């Protein structure tokens, strides 16, 4: 159980407005929101690594320690930036283990590699030699190396083909059950969110609009939620006309 209390983040102007949210343990939580609504910032705040020059108030309360890497796995949205260009995947993986005083867990790594459809030989490649999707999958691998109990996944399927996306989300669900983990999955597509999410959090303009189970969200009367739902359901032609009104 992680409690977010009155989190307020500002740079030049306010980016997150007094946010309150509780993330129950062992859940697959989906964070949905428009572009620029502050989803990534919220994750960074949870990691306690806001960009320089931002100030924040409020607190994150957790009954268990939240150590980066060990307890929290983070899959960044800008996944290509996540890798040191001069190290091979294997070296970085080893560093991750070493940073927490662990030994390489080879069977586990092999297992994850297989699930992510990553060729083990790619471990010896430099980031520049891998495709976007491959990199993103490595970012996932890195996030789960130490079997953290909280996974912050920021748009983790953007570079993945649909088949892989489904497989991956299935696996994440499985992981969540196996390790009793909490997964905070950021997306702006309602499709996967409704499909996989046990709980949904909707954000708009730095505020939490609504939280609830998929069913509750589908039934919601909130205008933002409704517009999202509508966009999700309708065909693209209809989608745009309905959305532009509610979106400033």
């Amino acid at each position: 159980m992680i409690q977010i209390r009155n989190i307020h983040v500002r740079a030049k102007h306010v980016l997150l407005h007094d946010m309150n949210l509780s993330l129950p343990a062992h859940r697959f939580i989906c964070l949905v929101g428009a572009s620029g609504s502050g989803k990534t910032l919220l994750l960074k705040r949870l990691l306690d690594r806001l960009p320089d020059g931002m100030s924040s108030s409020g607190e994150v309360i957790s009954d268990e320690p939240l150590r980066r890497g060990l307890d929290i796995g983070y899959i960044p949205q800008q996944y290509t930036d996540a890798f040191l260009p001069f190290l091979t995947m294997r070296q970085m993986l080893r560093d991750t283990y070493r940073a927490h005083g662990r030994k390489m867990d080879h069977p586990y790594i092999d297992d994850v590699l297989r699930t992510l459809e990553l060729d083990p030989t790619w471990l010896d490649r430099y980031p520049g030699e891998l495709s976007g999707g491959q990199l993103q999958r490595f970012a996932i691998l890195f996030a789960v190396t130490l079997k953290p109990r909280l996974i912050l996944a920021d748009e983790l399927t953007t570079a993945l083909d649909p088949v892989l996306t489904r497989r991956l989300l299935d696996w994440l669900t499985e992981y969540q059950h196996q390790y009793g983990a909490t997964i905070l999955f950021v997306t702006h597509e309602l499709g996967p969110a409704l499909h996989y999410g046990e709980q949904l959090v909707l954000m708009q303009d730095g505020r939490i609009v609504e939280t609830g189970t998929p069913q509750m969200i589908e039934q919601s009367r909130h205008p933002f939620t409704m517009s999202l739902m509508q966009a999700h359901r309708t065909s693209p032609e209809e989608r745009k006309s309905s959305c532009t009104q509610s979106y400033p």
Partner: protein
Amino acid sequence: MKKRWLIFGGCLLFFISYTVFTNSFNTNIAKRLEPASFEHWLGTDGLGRDFAARLFLAGLISLGFSLLTVLLTACIGTCLGCLAGFYDGRLKHLIHRLEDGLVIFPDTVLALVIAGLFGASPQSLIFAILLIKWISYARLSETLVTETMQKPYISMARINGLTDSMILRRHILPPIIRQVVVLMSLDVGKVILFLSAFSYIGLGVQAPLPEWGTMLNEGRPYFSSAPRLMLLPGACIVLTVVATMGWTRWMKKKGGHVNDSDSEHTRSGETRPSA
């Protein structure tokens, strides 16, 4: 701002008149090594010349000279370095070999050869320093270019149809120039020192024209009897370097839109105003 310039101009004028008045070339060896007095503000040097006037005159010569040389060197070095980093292949190889070939000679040896070949003149002095110093600029800029070239925004610039020279000028040079400028401001002092080192082999400014580096050298025998003869020129060079560094930082603050506390891109970009 204006006021500051006025004060600066006033001081300059004052020093010029002092220098003209006391005539820094008048030797009067009966009055050598005199301590500071009203007549000679900083005393006299080993030949009884007014030290303050010489120091000032030397400042003009040293500064002008070293700024010119450093500028020239940095330009040429950075250009060649950028070319080597930008165009892989033959040109790069050629530039590398040129660097290797020149680096082999110790500074003094190179200067000796130049002095012998072209005679002692300011041009050959500049040439000698150029030959010695361009390499470090070339090296630095080459590595930095190589690094920048990896960035996708360079590919994007290509796609946008920018010519090689535009890419170099607009995307690659600015971050390099920052480092080059730092190196330059350090080199201003070094070049002044080079002047003195080379005056020993007759390459420097010809006597009796003063120049800080040479004065520093000349003052060396008086280290125990009149330490100011050595300390003051040294202090002047230090101040010059400090001033050039400060000046470059000031320029940067005034100029570029890049909001950096100190010449590099930081992530604390939030401080800049957004429209």
